């Protein structure tokens, strides 16, 4: 596997989020230990958060089903790639009809490499062919990055990373596609 070196778009900085274009919807924080105890937490949490974020939509359930699909993929990746201790923080914001999910988590050096690589792959120009190639030549075990690749290649989500210097934490920003009030991408 080779990675084409490309420039990834800069993640939004806190100052951006302060602008009136962004509307804060909700924040949640929990310990890595509690979250990682059970795989089922990804599903439960994704559904719960999605439902909350979709509360005021025309078809809240369908909207939430779609959001849950995106949030769950991200949570599953986090479940498999995080440091053993610390807190995970989730912030949901909205800009127009886009939901932006910021997730901050404790990482090991190995995790950090994984996330950097994921963001790089997701942001390469020919993502669709990449994604298709990986489906045509699937790995034997679990391809844990493919979930993120699909979010970008199939649903046009964007993924960026922010690494505050000198910390064992990093943030991922997942910007979801425009979703209408009926839950249609």
């Amino acid at each position: 596997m080779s990675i084409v070196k490309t420039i990834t778009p800069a993640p939004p900085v806190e100052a951006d989020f302060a602008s009136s274009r962004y509307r804060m919807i909700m924040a949640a924080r929990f310990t890595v230990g509690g979250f990682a105890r059970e795989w089922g937490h990804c599903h439960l949490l994704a559904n719960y958060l999605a439902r909350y974020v979709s509360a005021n939509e025309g078809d809240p359930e369908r909207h939430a089903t779609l959001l849950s699909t995106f949030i769950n993929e991200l949570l599953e990746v986090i479940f498999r790639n995080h440091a053993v201790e610390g807190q995970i923080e989730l912030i949901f914001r909205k800009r127009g009809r886009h939901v932006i999910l910021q997730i901050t988590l404790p990482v090991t050096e190995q995790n950090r490499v994984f996330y950097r690589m994921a963001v790089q792959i997701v942001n390469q120009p020919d993502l669709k062919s990449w994604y298709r190639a990986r489906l045509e030549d699937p790995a034997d075990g679990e391809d844990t990055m493919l979930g993120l690749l699909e979010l970008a290649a199939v649903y046009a989500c964007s993924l960026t990373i922010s690494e505050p210097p000198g910390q064992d934490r990093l943030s991922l920003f997942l910007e979801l596609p425009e979703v209408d009030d009926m839950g249609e991408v």
Partner: protein
Amino acid sequence: MPVALNMRLTGNEEQEVTLTGTLRPFVADEMASVRSSLEQAARTTRGTLCVNLKRLKYMNNVAFLELNRFVRWVAHTRPGLRVKFVISSVIPWAVRKFQVIAELYPFVTIEVYDKAFYPIQQVIEDDDFMNVLRTQQKIIWEHEREKLAWHGLRPGLRIADICCGLGDFAILLQSDFRPEYLIGVDHSKPFLRYAWQLVSDFGLENIEYQYGDAAALLLPDNSFDFVSCRLSLQVFHEPDHIVNELYRICRPGGRIYLTNEMMSGVTGYPNEEVIRHGYIRFLELCRRVGMDLDIGLKTRTILHEVGLEDIKICLLGITNMNTAPHDFARVVESWLRTAKQMAATANAEPELYEDVSAGLTAHIEAITRDNGFAMWPIFAGSGRKPFRTS
């Protein structure tokens, strides 16, 4: 992993494997039983293997990859076999996800089964017809509200209104029968948007709308006290599927409530012969587009066959003497417009529409005439879901 698996062998040419619920495994190994069922089905099919995902609400990438591996297995092990993924437009992530697989492998197709299954949907989503649906609601409601308590409706219930149309029922119930919670399901996004706007305008928080297929609802089993389906069974080829779904989501002890039309009983005076003949021909036209507007007569049988007890039926007898004739006439005028569009859809011979037109025009005359009499019978029926099935 709460996924339900179902296999149906429909002959050597076609097999169907159905997955419903949630498929979000940690590793592909957890899908061993799904995988082996798929392989078994593939081995015994000569033509097409259908993988039915209509009601698979959640699926993660681990599961998707395993399906992808299965498709590749088919390519190597069962060349010549076709694989069809049957998905629903109701599941918001499904079409895009499976499109990729269909593009990758020439022997794979996807079928969005509910793309256009209600032949007159376009006709009725038109603005003008939406107004008419509202008028129709208005005149029916005056008669229906008096009967609802008898059918077991009272305030504080959890209600599902299936095929809710413009959602008026939810609003109308607020004054006398305010539900604890009501969910309206319909397969028309314009209708649902309209309904939701109305609910937001009224600031009602106990009402929710959902895009869905009445024959494959995503609502959980045994979860509503009162399940209504008003003037809608008639639009389906196979109303049994819908009624089974109504039954499934109703809690034991809860009630299912239907209203059904009986077009063959629509009549009026003068010109009763022309009117009757017109409606008989209208029925014929409706049948050609797959609708049974005489289903009212079958209400008791339908409620009985699905297994309900304490069945009640009453007639909502709308006449030009207990209803504003102007509104009544507008409703019939709208049927006439619908009939015209239906005739075009069905490619019907011109005489059919001419008969319908003559009959309905005579009906309108009877409605609006000072000394005329006209009626429109609707059956309202309900039954209770037993606590224990024998």
